[in-house]
């Protein structure tokens, strides 16, 4: 694999406890894992297991109660270490496609011309050249997610954090966007931490799948995905793909049953 830069991420014994009226609630317990340079890691787990909390911790939007989150590279001046892609509603409704995509650059103080030059290739890559000056409400849900992805790549972070970005899309659009995401990712070789509840999606996209337990969430199993890249949809019919899917599903089923008492 062609490794550019020295990005990467290490989580060491990360725990997060929320204080609520009914006492403390432990969302994450002793989560440790490492993401190599340019690696695409998918995290699956039962709903409410703290996946989103984990992403927000890595993004720096929350502080861990204990443990450390280490980036392999010191933050360069102003460059964000991470860029989050939200499930939906992550775009600013009051900004055009260009305004949204260039937001990270604007926050770094780049001028109008430079923002446009750096953003345009990514807007083209996600097929939205004709919508540069449209507002999000004029776009379909799938197009909005493309904008969100372009925004994250343009910001050129060390690590991309994706929180079920395609969760609200229909099946066809989802497949198309997954392939597009892989294509852009191949060209840019970012670290990706990708959260999903869709096992097939995780196996199709990732280099590795981390399976989380029910709350308090921790990593129960780490599964390397052996399929070579570039991948296409046919791998979903391979016997080892189906077997891995069955294996992960069994773990998740167990966890869901446990959490229901």
């Amino acid at each position, binding site marked *: 694999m062609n490794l550019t830069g020295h990005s990467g991420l290490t989580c060491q014994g990360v725990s997060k406890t929320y204080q609520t009226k009914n006492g403390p609630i432990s969302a994450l317990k002793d989560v440790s894992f490492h993401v190599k340079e340019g690696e695409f890691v998918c995290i699956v787990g039962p709903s409410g297991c703290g996946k989103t909390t984990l992403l*927000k911790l890595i*993004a*720096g*939007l929350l502080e861990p109660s204990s443990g450390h989150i280490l980036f392999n590279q010191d933050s360069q001046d*102003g460059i*964000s270490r*991470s*860029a*989050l892609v*939200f499930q939906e*509603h*992550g775009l*600013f*409704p*009051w*900004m055009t496609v260009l305004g949204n995509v260039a*937001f*990270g650059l*604007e*926050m*770094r103080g780049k001028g109008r011309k430079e923002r446009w030059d750096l953003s345009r290739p990514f807007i083209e890559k996600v097929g939205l050249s004709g919508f540069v000056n449209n*507002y*999000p*409400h004029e776009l379909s849900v799938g197009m909005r997610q493309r904008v969100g992805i372009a925004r994250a790549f343009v*910001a050129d972070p060390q690590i991309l954090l994706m929180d079920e970005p395609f969760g609200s899309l229909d099946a066809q659009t989802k497949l198309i966007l997954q392939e597009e995401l892989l294509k852009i990712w191949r060209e840019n070789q970012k670290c990706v931490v990708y959260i999903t509840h869709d096992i097939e999606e995780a196996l199709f996209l990732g280099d590795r799948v981390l399976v989380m337990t029910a709350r308090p969430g921790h990593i129960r199993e780490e599964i390397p995905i052996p399929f070579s890249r570039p991948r296409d949809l046919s791998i979903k019919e391979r016997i080892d793909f189906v077997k891995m899917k069955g294996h992960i599903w069994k773990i998740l089923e167990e966890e869901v049953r446990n959490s229901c008492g």
Partner: protein
Amino acid sequence: MKENHRLFGFMREGWLTLLIIFFVTITWELVVYIGWLSSLFFPPPSVIVVTFIKLIINNKLVDNTGVTLWRVFLGLVLGGIPGLILGLTMGWSRRLYLLINPFIAAGHPIPKIAILPLIMIIFGIGESSKIIVIAMAAFFPLLINTAAGVQQISPIHFEVAKNYGAKLTKIFTRVIFPGSLPLMLTGLRLSLNFALLVAIAVELVSAQKGLGAMNWLAWQTLRTEELYVSLIVTALLGIFFNFFLQRLAVYLAPWKAEQRI
């Protein structure tokens, strides 16, 4: 396509309105002419139009309208700007909101014209008392709507901004201000309406000049046709304000205006 539809719809309604106005005017004229209605209470439209032209020629109408507009403007600036600023900070800071909101909740429902006597005792019967009362009327709608506008901004937008490294000033100019702008403009429209309402009311009670004063003088001297002229001009002002602010909202907040027309 959609634009055309709307335009035609508007034109159809516009023609209908004009037709109704035309019909009512003709009937009115006829009914007074026949003698079914007293021309003392209902001077025929032809007389009102002649009076209208006379009042324009002798400068009385322009003069009084100008005085009213100036009072509305001063009141809007002196009341609206503090309302806007306080609304933004109250929407931003939950603590400040809790601290100040009881006073707002108590002050808002008081009909501002009822405070005029008290204000006149304190500030005298001059121009400043009138402006203060108009400013009070303009203060509350802008404050309340602006605060609500900031509060309804989705937390996701703050998270995105933070994730991309937005500083406090950028959070204000790129998230808080545009995010609350649509409701802010609604507040501005309400403030303008209230300012006009209270300006007329203040002039009815205690002024030598202005549309309200003209109206009151016309009643005292039983010049009914002048009364009608001042009423019509006041109504036209109100209609113009609303129309103007709707256009302004479409121009300044195209992402929301789309859904509002």
